[in-house]
């Protein structure tokens, strides 16, 4: 029998050795104190942490405009690059304020609640792995073990099967730091089913609008199209509710809200068809 505890320990030893050897290497190349620019970061770290830099290059951060580069999160001072970079506040600066669904769905989850209560007692210098954190913040899941391609842990709405499988494997392994593998697997499987139901609602509404598009003017269809914009946000809410495990986003901001959108779109189309009908 393979002892999983032993494997963890072995991995942990390798990680410690790895981290130490990197810091020794980095010490030799340590830049002078003072402000550093992104170009300088890349010059050194492409050599010392090539894998990390490459994963960042693959990420949506590297491809966005303006680019979210090393200094955007780590700051310009080499002595303090790791001090606050793992904290949620860094992510929130771009990913919306407290009321934005992406932040609020996390904040109202049990993970987010524990972060609000205990986050200031957390040692944020710990590596993002092996349950070093009582509760996961943004970075623990989306940059687990220093992964710099955040999208590897994000389930986008429409994904190829292979991409989806990769994300699910990733999520399964991260959540397993704290939760039983079966619990995580069942949550993932249920989340997928829940998302598919949300998409069924969207497709039902979409089909009605598209059928009506040939018969009625765009102006007449405008209220239905506007409702569809809300519907897409509500689908996103289900995504966030599943991903961040917020029951409120899965439900009140998600499924029943989608039901309401569908009713209103049907109402618009019914009224158009009924108004058109006596003139036949």
């Amino acid at each position, binding site marked *: 029998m393979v002892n999983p505890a032993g494997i963890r320990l072995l991995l942990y030893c390798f990680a410690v050795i790895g981290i130490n050897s990197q810091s020794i290497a980095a010490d030799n190349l340590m830049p002078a104190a003072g402000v550093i620019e992104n170009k300088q970061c890349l010059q050194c770290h492409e050599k010392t942490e090539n894998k990390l830099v490459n994963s960042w290059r693959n990420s949506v951060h590297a491809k966005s405009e303006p680019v979210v580069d090393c200094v955007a999160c780590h700051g310009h001072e080499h002595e303090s690059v790791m001090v606050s970079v793992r904290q949620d506040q860094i992510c929130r600066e771009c990913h919306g304020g407290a009321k934005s669904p992406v932040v609020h769905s996390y904040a109202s989850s049990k993970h987010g609640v524990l972060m609000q209560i205990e986050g200031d007692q957390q040692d944020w210098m710990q590596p993002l792995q092996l349950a070093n954190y009582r509760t996961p913040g943004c970075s623990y899941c989306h940059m687990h073990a220093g992964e710099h391609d955040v999208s590897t842990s994000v389930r986008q709405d429409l994904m190829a099967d292979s991409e989806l499988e990769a994300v699910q494997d990733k999520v399964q392994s991260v959540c397993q730091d704290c939760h039983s593998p079966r619990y995580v697997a069942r949550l993932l499987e249920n989340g997928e089913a829940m998302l598919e139901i949300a998409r069924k609602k969207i497709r039902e509404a979409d089909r009605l609008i598209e059928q009506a598009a040939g018969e009625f003017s765009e102006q007449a269809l405008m209220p239905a199209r506007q409702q569809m914009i809300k519907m897409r946000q509500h689908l996103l809410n289900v995504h966030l509710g599943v991903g961040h495990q917020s029951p409120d986003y*899965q439900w009140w901001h998600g499924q029943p809200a989608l039901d309401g959108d569908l009713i209103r779109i049907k109402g618009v189309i019914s009224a158009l068809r009924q108004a058109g009908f006596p003139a036949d």
Partner: protein
Amino acid sequence: MHTRYLWIPLLIVTIAIPLGFYYVDWSKSGEGAGLYSRDWLPQAIFAYWNPDDFYESVKSVKGEFSGEQCVDCHQGVTPGIVNDWRKSRHSKPVNDQAVVYCSDCHGNNHDDLHLPTPGVCAACHAVQHEQFVDEKRYGFPSHSLAMERALDAKHFVDKPKAEVTACLQCHSVASKCDSCHSRHRFSAAEARRPEACITCHSGPPHPDDETYFHSKHGQLYLQEGKNWDWSKPLKKGNYPVPTCAYCHMDNGKHQVADKSIWGFGIKQVNPMSSGNEVKRNQWIKLCSDCHDPDWASGQLKQLDAERKQSWQKLYQAESILKGLRSDDMLSPSAAQRPPYPGDVPGDFMQRERIGFFEGQASAFYNVSPIERDYFEMWYFNNLKSYKGAAHGDVSFVNEGQVAMDSSLEKITQNAERLRQLAEAGKAIQDTSRKGKTDKGDNILQEIWLRGEYTEYNRDHN
């Protein structure tokens, strides 16, 4: 002489009552759970939200293990759980108590593990468990009745089960103590913080989080709460401002229902009944920990006034809808759309459900747009104002009232439009173009009875 009438009560006692009990037992014995257990099948994840009904042990490892062995292995498998436990009082008991290991709650046999329910915690925390169970006698809303409330909701039974999983996630507060004392730390201090409640007490029907944090109490908590000693019990003098638990679970009593006057806020109550007078006095006594009793009494009267005002508006909307229903002018009508959850399609008695006592709570889908407007007015706007008034957040009272006003206006206008539409339809029928009304019927049924989700919902519950 009159003994021949004796057979009626005798028949009731010997046949009807036992038959009733048997029927309830039978209806609860299906593969699902609750009163409609024969109508649905559970999702695998339900095992974790309702372990009493659905949990089955994982079978991946065989053998019996001691507490220390569990810890040794799980330090590697799921280190987060063990880290949490190490910091809990279970691993570091005081006063010569024994260490509470994994196996004490989950069992020793890895082939036959269980997910601890409140009954398991009761082995040590008897007083809290007794209070928690005692809550049931106060009826809904309640933590200890939350699971059966969810399982017996018509829309829960009707909808695809993967869709309504989130319902059970919150309603599992009846089945798991870790809804508030998160696992595996099980900290009392954590549950005393207001954030412990907000994963479930948030969102449009119960914005308890927002209304509390906006209130003066909540603002002070946000500014200073970090520095308070949360290990102290929820008693007078221990906290500068009240939190959710300080008021709703005063003195640490593990139930929230005994003082509830207006309940969930979804039906009107008489706040001056003798029973509510007792509850009112309990509130005044509690508020008097910090405030003048007369001031507290005044605040409660303001809440009563807010409720009265809201219900006047809700009843106006309800009477508009019931008027449309009487005149057969709701469109689509009950026959032109999928049935109300729990109703049978094509049922002879099928009709639109309006108002709390007819089952308004499930009327958020399979209804016409104007009924959905009323649902939102009743379940979202009304409760926004209620929670604002109850928690001392004037901005939410105002927003809720304004939202109710605009809902009422929208409902009034749409009702007028529906009446015009119905009149026009009637005129066509009067000129005996019967074929055309059938066509109108078909148009509506095509839109409302068909569609990917609508059909899926009909086939999957």
